């Protein structure tokens, strides 16, 4: 019983981190119909940026987000402008390849500057823990979970309480119709991409404190994140969060098996709607 409870608590806490990383991915897909395969690499990039900042000016890893999130936001807007916007035909398939190339580029640059040795973000809460109901929870999981709640909460407010959110959701539902009623979809797309990449910075800090990582870590990360959003249903924020919270409790393999089972029974994912798509 205690083990189950412990696994459940840990599952929810780490699930929060995956929910945060997956939310950026699903936001980008929802608005632009683009699978950002580079999200994992961007998370790792965020972790490295925080690593560099915390090492050079001895800032707490979580506090480096004040710098890294805006930087990553701008980077996201830049990437969208240079690489995604010029795609005119066959966006969905081509964007996967483009973002894959971006991931490779990031991996190469990080490997050049930081070598391929594994590193970890250091902080006092990385190992310090407190006891609750007889088992120990490391502080970092709590902090990470709170950060994820804060950012996801902000994301929900942005999406459902602001006029920008309304424009964004309109673009998600029907791009052409949104354009017709006066939404600047290009601007919305750029901002959504920026926000999605900025959440990767936040995810990167928590990932970096809880895991040792190197530039190649993004492969493992992205395969999990992609599975999470497929499991939840592409483009569904709620589906992504639920899928993230229920999944990392188990080892990766069990998780992939669940993905397969879901695809057999429900190809559109937990919360997805079946769409008629053309490639």
């Amino acid at each position, binding site marked *: 019983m205690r083990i189950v409870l412990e696994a459940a608590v840990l599952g929810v806490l780490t699930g929060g981190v995956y929910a945060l990383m997956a939310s950026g991915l699903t936001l980008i*897909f929802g608005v632009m*119909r683009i*699978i950002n*395969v580079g999200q994992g690499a961007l998370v790792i990039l965020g972790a490295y940026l925080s690593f560099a900042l915390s090492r050079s000016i001895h800032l707490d890893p979580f506090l480096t987000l004040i710098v890294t999130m805006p930087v990553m936001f701008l980077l996201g807007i830049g990437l969208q402008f240079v*690489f995604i916007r*010029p*795609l005119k*035909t*066959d966006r*969905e*398939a*081509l964007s*996967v*390849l*483009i973002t*894959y*190339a*971006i991931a*490779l*580029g990031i*991996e*190469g*640059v*990080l*490997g*050049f500057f930081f070598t*391929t040795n594994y590193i970890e973000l250091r902080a006092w809460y990385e190992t310090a823990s407190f006891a609750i109901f007889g088992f120990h929870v490391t502080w970092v999981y709590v902090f990470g979970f709170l950060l994820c709640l804060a950012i996801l909460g902000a994301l929900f407010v942005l999406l459902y309480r602001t006029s920008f959110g309304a424009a964004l959701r309109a673009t998600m539902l029907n791009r052409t119709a949104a354009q017709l009623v006066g939404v600047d979809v290009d601007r919305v797309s750029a901002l959504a991409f920026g926000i999605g990449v900025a959440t990767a910075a936040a995810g990167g800090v928590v990932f970096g404190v809880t895991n040792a990582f190197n*530039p190649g870590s993004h*492969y*493992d990360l*992205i*395969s999990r994140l*992609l*599975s999470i*959003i*497929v499991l939840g249903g*592409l483009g569904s924020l709620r589906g992504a969060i639920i899928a993230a919270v229920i999944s990392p409790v188990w080892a*990766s*393999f069990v998780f*992939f098996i669940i*993905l*397969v089972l879901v*695809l*057999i029974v429900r*190809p559109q994912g937990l919360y997805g709607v079946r769409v*008629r*798509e*053309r*490639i």
Partner: protein
Amino acid sequence: MSRLRVLKRVGLLAAIVIALILPLIAPDPSTTNLAVFTVMYIGLATSWNIMGGYTGYISLGHAAFFGFGAYSLGLLSNHLNVAPGYAPFLLVPVAGVISGLVAVLIGWIALRTRAATFVIVTIAFMFMGQLLAENLVKLTGGGAGLGFPYPQQWGGDFYNTPFYYAMLALAFLALATSWTIRRSKFGLGLLAIRDDEDKALAVGVPTRRFKLAAFTISAIPVGMIGAVYGYYVTYVYPQFVFDPLIGISMVLMVFLGGLGTLAGPVLGALLLEPAQLQFAYRFGASRLYLVFYAAVFLLVMLFLPRGVVPSVQELLQRRRQELASP
């Protein structure tokens, strides 16, 4: 027959002859090694094109079949105590069959999805293969890797030659398959699926069966090539055969050369693989070759998304029209 057609045939014949006698005219190991890998990628890209180019389903997980093929051959030849030499090559078709069976299973599940979801699911399956190879330690040796028989008798310059011809045979097999499909009713059905799957179904193309067949057919040569690769490098590790970079390389070559064309994948492999090897050799330690790779990829996607072959064809056609109507 027009002059262009004659020229094309002569060029093709010359290319085949050069491919056949290459180890005789350039026997030094560094050249033959380059040739082995280039021909390997010609085979891989051509096979991938059957699914990605004709059918329009982008699979980023074809490295899974590469890995399954390599591990199949390694395990089979170890358990059957196959003597190093030409004997392991006889098991290569078995590795192909095993990869084909895996492809039926993966395809049956992955082909329930379309477009972007399909891409993701194929990536997930590739990592599943990697996890299997890593975690079934008793069978595969796990992260410590798997050794193959080592053909000591092929010393010196000759060592690469048998592997070169094995890869060449597989590349020809892939090209012949691709050519046959392109001219068959089956191939026409695949093109219809690419253009509009729902309409194809409506006019009577058995889309599910065709897609699964195309997926399997494109996986079998990849498995066989993976098997020869494993034997060539004599030692494989999970992350070096179930390698996302191998999966993305074949895709990039097809896009560079021309999606859905016969010559495109060949051209793409000829252009990219030597460059990639050079870069990996010079900057391998610093991982900077990944940046080069990403840069080529991005440039191709942004400026030449239809590939070299279709662009050149279009150019020729326009010139001919200009000549025809002065």
